């Protein structure tokens, strides 16, 4: 069937088989290989992407169901600069080792930056609990998110409000 949707700000129209999940659609049909397919049954979080502004498991969404939807992948998130500071913090703290989990981890962490600016370490861990990392032991990842949050808190006026896209903050 034909679907038309917006991926990283661009309108795309494609024929998809109903059995295609969003991650295969992104990777195989659109060549956007930043989103990873790990377990393909909802457990590992490597496939985390945004659909209509909210993070989802890309492996548990039918591409065919996304006619009219807006999808953002790690490629789009990176290009927008929304999480440049977070990505720098990941590098600085060695929060990515093999990197397999990293795109999903950054998508999930970006959700914390957008919606839970006051998250403490426990809340960060809780929010990332659905994203598995087999390399880092998580400590460095939590460090990177916590550091980015506190940097942004320093650089963002208190009245900027939660959930804003504070692109310039913390740079």
């Amino acid at each position, binding site marked *: *069937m034909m679907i038309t949707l917006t991926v990283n700000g661009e309108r795309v129209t494609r024929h998809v*088989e*109903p*059995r295609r*999940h969003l991650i*295969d659609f992104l990777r195989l049909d659109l060549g956007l290989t930043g989103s990873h397919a790990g377990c*393909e*049954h*909802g457990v590992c*979080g490597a496939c*985390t992407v945004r659909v209509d502004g*909210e*993070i*989802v*498991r890309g*492996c*548990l*969404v*039918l591409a*065919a*169901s996304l006619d009219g939807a807006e999808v953002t992948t790690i490629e789009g998130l990176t290009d927008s600069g929304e999480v440049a500071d977070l990505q720098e913090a990941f590098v600085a703290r060695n929060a990515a080792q093999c990197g397999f989990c990293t795109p999903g981890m950054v998508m*999930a962490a970006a*959700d914390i930056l957008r919606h839970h600016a006051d998250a403490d370490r426990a809340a960060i*861990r*809780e*929010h990332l*609990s*659905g*994203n598995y990392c087999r390399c880092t032991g998580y400590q460095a990842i939590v460090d990177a998110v916590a550091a980015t949050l506190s940097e942004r808190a320093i650089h963002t006026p208190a009245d900027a409000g939660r959930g804003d896209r504070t692109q310039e903050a913390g740079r």
Partner: protein
Amino acid sequence: MKWPALGYLRASSLDELWRALGDGAQILAGGQTLLATLAFRLSEPGTLVDITRIPELRGITVTGGVLRVGALTRHAELGRDALVARHAPLLTQAVPHIAHPAIRNRGTIGGSLAYADPAAELPACAVALNATLVLARAGGERRIKATEFFTGLLTTALEPGEIIAAVEFPLAGPSQRATILEVARRSGDYAMAGLAAVLDLGADGRIASPRLTFFGVGEGPVLAKNANAALEGRVLDAAAIAAAQAALEGDLDPPADLHGPPAMKRHLCRVLLGRALQSFTPATEQAA
């Protein structure tokens, strides 16, 4: 594993849905269980009928003295809804226990109740809160108590061609105490053992209408009849808690599963019961 070949249809109204439901058609809501089972080839539906854009199945309202939650309400919506927090606070407390944020953004209450996983939170909450399910089919509707809806392991009273349209919860009164506690291996995992506890606590400290409901320890939600009877009318104190824990033995028949033997589950349930009731006692009497 890749999914089997299948068809996909989106119904945009109930009328369209009734026409689409036929042989080999299966309802797709949030997909957070169904699509995972496709990956295991545990199910091979001919056609998935997507119900997520049917407006009649959406919305959270207070009407006719009940809180009505549309079947398509996603876990994340349930968790942040002000009407839910006010009238059925147990549900608000339950949401953070369900899976992870990305899954809560898509999974629905209707899907959770229809799938009836014995370790799932919302079926137990529906029983604990004495909810009524509104089931719809072509040409009609019927209502059924949650206690009668769950009929066994992953089985419900849903008949072919019938769907969950909404769930109705009685409004919590000021004397209601409710909590949900569970033990899981990792945050977001299905519970090894869990308890949705609801009761009324009078000004005199007496318990009325207790509905302790355990999950993860049976074929479906387990309403602890003996423990509840042991609590009815009693002042909530250490002796009442001990009596309920003793009575609980007769309520549980947990199967051994990959988490451990029945004895371990019984132990966890006793501990959860103690913690839940303790949390309802006045702060000054609480052990930390």
